[in-house]
């Protein structure tokens, strides 16, 4: 339920497939969050590095938490370059209940931003520049300093 792609996501295809996969699962609420690359600061796009083993562990722990709530999570993310107005991220929750779905998508997306081992680079003038000032140190950082 964690899908990684080289380059931009095909958002309509992914949303259609996920919706149809769970069409008979009796979930009453489905909330995807779609992240798209904005034109800002003169960038040509973004680029992503992913460390898959820890991303998979992080996602599996969240899936177990969602299951306790009666919910199900799906996620897709891009590796490498994603150009302006293309999408790099979809997180989605399915749940029998509206409240659980709304709360879970918010917590999941916020924890994703704070914890998922993904590094973002601006593509600018043909260079790949680490987006340091927009990045968040993972909880527990600095123990070696």
């Amino acid at each position: 339920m964690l899908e990684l792609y080289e380059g931009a996501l095909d958002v309509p295809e992914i949303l259609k497939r996920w919706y149809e996969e769970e069409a008979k699962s009796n979930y009453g609420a489905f909330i995807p969050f779609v992240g798209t690359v904005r034109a800002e600061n003169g960038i040509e796009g973004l680029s992503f590095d992913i460390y898959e083993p820890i991303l998979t562990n992080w996602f599996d722990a969240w899936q177990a938490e969602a299951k306790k709530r009666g919910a199900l999570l799906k996620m897709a993310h891009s590796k490498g370059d994603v150009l302006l107005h293309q999408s790099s991220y979809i997180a989605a929750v399915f749940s029998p209940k509206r409240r659980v779905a709304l709360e879970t998508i918010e917590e999941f997306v916020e924890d994703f931003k704070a914890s998922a081992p993904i590094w973002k680079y601006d593509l600018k003038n043909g260079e790949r520049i680490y987006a340091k000032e927009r990045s968040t140190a993972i909880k527990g950082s600095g123990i070696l300093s």
Partner: protein
Amino acid sequence: MVTVEFLGPIGKEPIQLDITNLLELSQKLKEDESLKEWLECSAVAINDKIVASKDHPLQDGDKISLLPPVCGG
């Protein structure tokens, strides 16, 4: 021997070290001036599990990863 990986933007090749705990790792890595800024802001994983404290023994064959600040999405 343990292997140390530097993830994402740190941009340094993996190294192998003959150490038995994270305190020793900290001392070794501080010798590399280019790592100073990264040590302050990076999390540490042992065999792909993030650890919360430096008081952690290491075993032969362990894989240690340094994770600098993240920004997915």
